[in-house]
């Protein structure tokens, strides 16, 4: 229940190839996040799995059955849309019950299951309201409720939190993660936000231009990004890339070092620079530092209460164990 395999799946719109052939294995119960910049084909990939788009080539397997030519309803998947896609003329109760009604489940059982779902999602008091009378977070929960009552083989989420404000987003993120723990059902979650990806995923699939750049756990991607794109996309603030002489010294076309892997030292640092603007977050402070001989400024993390001012000269030492080296093609050199 809930194993999904893509074999050589590709998608063209007219003569534009949005997804070149790719393979992907998703195991039962995994929380998989598709992450990548806008327009890279995340939604399209999700819709191919859902059956809302037909593949241009390849096969989609669910639990080892070829479902490539099955309509969405037959795939036992539930989807939560970015726009929620609630039915505006139905009460919350009827919205959640709709898939059950379509499956011709007896009304008593429908009610039972709707109330169970409502209890899990804290919607019990809102069952008789219309979607228009709910807040964004509540609508989101109704959409999730409509997905869970069917007890699907897997859940598909397409940027479900992007219409919520920041505070609510953090809350819903936890709720979805909790739901995954409780149900233990496969979830595929699409987002362009790498923080969401890092915090929620068992497995992250990084996409660029429809191609899979890397698949791995959040820490694998953080520690050993397989190319410059992944290295720059995962982690916040993003990794510093240094080219030129300094890179050549490390036998690479380009080297990367994360802000948290550069240490501010009193004297005798590997690099010397001048402090630029800084961002104080309380727990941490991020400085922009102009290092002599580097083309771009470096972002450096220091403790929250470090006493450095604009224009100060500082010494920096990179942690060489966490230095990433990339070749001319941007691939990792190990």
């Amino acid at each position, binding site marked *: 229940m809930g194993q999904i395999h893509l074999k050589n799946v590709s998608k063209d719109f007219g003569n534009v190839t949005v997804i070149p052939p790719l393979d992907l294995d998703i195991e039962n119960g995994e929380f998989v996040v598709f992450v990548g910049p806008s327009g890279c084909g995340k939604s399209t990939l999700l819709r191919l799995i859902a059956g*809302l788009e037909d593949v241009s080539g390849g096969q989609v397997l669910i639990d080892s059955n070829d479902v490539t030519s099955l309509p*969405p*309803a037959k795939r036992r998947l539930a989807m939560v849309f970015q*726009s929620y*896609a*609630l039915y505006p003329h139905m009460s919350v109760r009827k919205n959640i019950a709709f898939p059950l009604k*379509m499956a011709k489940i007896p009304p008593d059982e429908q009610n039972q299951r709707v109330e169970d779902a409502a209890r899990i999602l804290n919607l019990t008091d809102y069952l008789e309201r219309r979607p228009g009378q709910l807040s964004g977070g509540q609508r989101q929960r109704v959409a999730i409720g409509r997905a869970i009552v069917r007890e699907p083989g897997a859940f598909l989420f397409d940027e479900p939190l992007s219409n919520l404000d920041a505070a609510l987003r953090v809350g819903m993120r936890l709720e979805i993660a909790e739901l995954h723990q409780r149900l233990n059902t496969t979830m595929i979650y699409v987002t362009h936000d790498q923080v969401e990806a890092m915090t929620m995923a068992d497995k992250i699939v990084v996409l660029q231009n429809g191609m899979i750049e890397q698949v791995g756990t959040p820490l694998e991607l953080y520690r050993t990004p397989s190319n410059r794109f992944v290295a720059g996309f995962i982690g916040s603030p993003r990794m510093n890339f240094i080219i030129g002489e300094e890179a050549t010294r490390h036998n690479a076309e380009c080297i990367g070092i994360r802000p948290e892997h550069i240490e501010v030292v009193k004297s005798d640092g590997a690099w010397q620079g001048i402090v630029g603007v800084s961002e104080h977050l309380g727990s941490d402070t991020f400085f922009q530092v102009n290092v002599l001989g580097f083309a771009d400024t470096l972002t450096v993390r220091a403790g929250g209460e470090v006493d450095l001012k604009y224009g100060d000269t500082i010494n920096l030492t990179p942690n060489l164990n966490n230095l990433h080296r990339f070749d001319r093609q941007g691939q990792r050199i190990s």
Partner: protein
Amino acid sequence: MISPSVLLLLGWMLVPLCMTLYFSTLRYNLIVPSDNPFVGWENYYWFVTDPSFKAAMFNTLLLVGGVLCITVVGGILFALLLDQPMWGQGLIRIMVISPFFVMPTVSGLVWKNMFMNPVNGIFGHVAQALNLAPVEFFSQIPLLSIILIVSWQWLPFATLILLTALQSLDRDQLEAAEMDGAKSLSRFIYIMIPHLARAITVVILIQTIFLLSIFAEILVTTNGGPGVATTNLTYLIYVSSLLQFDVGMGSAGGVIAIILANIVAIFLMRLIGKNLDA
């Protein structure tokens, strides 16, 4: 503060209304010259007790109801059809809309002479080709023929409004319903129809008000006949005031028509009030 435009509009409406009310209380027949005495409710009494009044009310009801049924059902079907991606979409849409731009008199005549004429009309030719007796539309099924002509005219309006409404339906909702296991018929019943409800009520409201006053199509095709088979309220008023030259009686009929139209309007407003607020 009442702005000048409101005053102008009020005058525009009130002067003819008051004149009609005034004339409806006079004995005022153009071929019986007299000093037009005040007779109170007499005109109303004679208008309402005339046997053709009952027939006219019934015909009005059938005409409005029949056209509404055909245009709403047909309009939904056409809208669904036109919403599909197809070749030459823009042109087809314009063609579907075009009957609405044909003047009622012209369309009445075209239908009478080119389609429904048992000898020269297309339907007659088709019937003959199939070795069937041609239907004599305006004598055998006069009211139905009028209903068909008027429906042809109003179908584009209904289609246009419903198509616009259909296009505003969020595609995500249809896809969500598809994921939820709804087949196309269920999607139509549970998602599309509720979404179209407001547009349908708007179509019904606007059309009813116009359909109550259908006149030109009847005048050029059947002249209200045979007998009073296609005489509706508007046509009956025309008969009283312009064929029988009875201004008083015609005005009384006019006042009744105004009251009727307003009852329908209020009733429909109430009915859809909830719908429009939502």
